[in-house]
């Protein structure tokens, strides 16, 4: 049997990691925890390096950081939130960098694990965005106005409200954070498993000397998907950030 050599590991094998420190305590640090720490540290390092360079004509790290800061400022903050969104730029920039670096570890050799493929990263982030936009809404419009605007659509006949209010509550306060977390998690998990699948097939073809003739096929797929996952990493970070900006911006304005 040609494919007898292919041995897919159980899914928990590639997602649940041993803790490497503080074993047994709630602070058990494993690969995913380490990646999140590195993502935060790397982001700070990039910014400190860029800020320290401070050249009039940017190059290298400074250029890289500035182009992303500029991109977030123009394409997310200004386009979605407008001028009043400017104070939110550091928050959104941090969000984008953190998610992107957590994602990109999916294709970094020897690490090859997107921290966002574990619910432990997208869920708290989505929860934080959820809390943020509710707090912003309450602070901008007051408790009564905010919730009234958020769950009662204007210009709708009373009878329909019975149907629409539960839907609005569901869509604005339950589906939003859930979708935010699941979208990121699902995409990164799927990408991770895809890469894993083709890596396992390629390995089986090569190491176990089965089907060397068709090895180029799964390997080409693996290469192509690695490139695609780099794109997905950036795209998902962008989507998460722009949706967060949109939710916060909506909460700031009483338009509804």
């Amino acid at each position, binding site marked *: 049997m040609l494919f007898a050599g292919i041995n897919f*590991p*159980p*899914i*928990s*094998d590639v*997602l*649940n*990691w*041993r*803790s490497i420190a*503080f074993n047994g*305590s*709630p*602070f*058990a*640090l*494993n690969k*995913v*925890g*380490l990646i*999140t*720490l590195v*993502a*935060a540290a790397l*982001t*700070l390092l990039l*910014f*400190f390096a*860029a*800020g320290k360079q*401070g050249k*009039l004509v940017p190059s290298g790290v400074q250029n890289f*950081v*500035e182009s992303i*800061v*500029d991109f977030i400022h123009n394409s997310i903050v200004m386009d979605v939130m407008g001028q009043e969104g400017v104070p939110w*730029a*550091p*928050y959104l*920039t*941090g969000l984008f*960098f*953190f998610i992107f670096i957590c994602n990109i570890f999916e294709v970094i050799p020897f690490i090859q694990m997107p*921290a966002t493929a*574990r*619910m*432990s*990263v997208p*869920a*708290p*982030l989505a929860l*934080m965005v959820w809390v943020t936009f509710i707090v912003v809404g309450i602070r901008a419009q007051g408790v009564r106005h905010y919730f009234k605007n958020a769950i009662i659509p204007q210009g709708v006949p009373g009878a329909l409200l019975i149907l629409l209010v539960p839907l609005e509550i569901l869509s604005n306060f339950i589906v939003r954070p859930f979708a935010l977390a699941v979208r990121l998690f699902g995409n990164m*998990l799927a990408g991770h498993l895809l890469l894993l699948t083709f890596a396992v097939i390629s390995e089986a073809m090569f190491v176990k000397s089965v089907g060397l003739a068709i090895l180029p096929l799964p390997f080409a797929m693996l290469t192509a998907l690695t490139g695609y996952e780099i794109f997905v990493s950036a795209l998902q970070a962008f989507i998460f950030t722009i949706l967060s900006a949109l939710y916060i911006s909506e909460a700031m304005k009483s338009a509804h």
Partner: protein
Amino acid sequence: MTTVILAAAAAGSSNPILPAAGEIVWSVLSFALLLLLLGKWAYPPVKKMMADRAAKIRGDLDAAELARTEAQRTLEEYKEQLAQAKRDATHILDEARQTAEALRADILAKAEEDAAVVRARNEEALRIERQRVIAELRSEVGSLALELAEKIIDAEVDRAASQTLIDSFISEIGATRA
């Protein structure tokens, strides 16, 4: 492989969706720390630098525009000055030409006048000389005629001698005339 699975099982649930508690703690901690440090120390310098650069570029552009306008204005001034200078030069040339023409005419007129004066003086001198000569001739001819008459009367007797006398008279006149 077994150890990995065992470790995973020990670390928490083996459900691929539900995360381990430690992961949540570290991810929240990392992100909170990132936001705090980024917002306080890391982001503002980068943003300030970018804003400063934008301001500098804007300032430079404004300055360049100002300099360009200034240069344009100076150029216009120079062009105007050049045109004025050309006009002045033409004017001066015209004036000089007119002056020269007037001078030439003056000199010519003066020369003609002088020539006329000289000519008139010469004519006058000639006329006086001619009158003087005529007067002289008249008196000479008179005295000669008288002399001739005397000599004729004296030589009445000797015709041959008279002839000699007339000849000498005529040669005398010729010598006087010469």
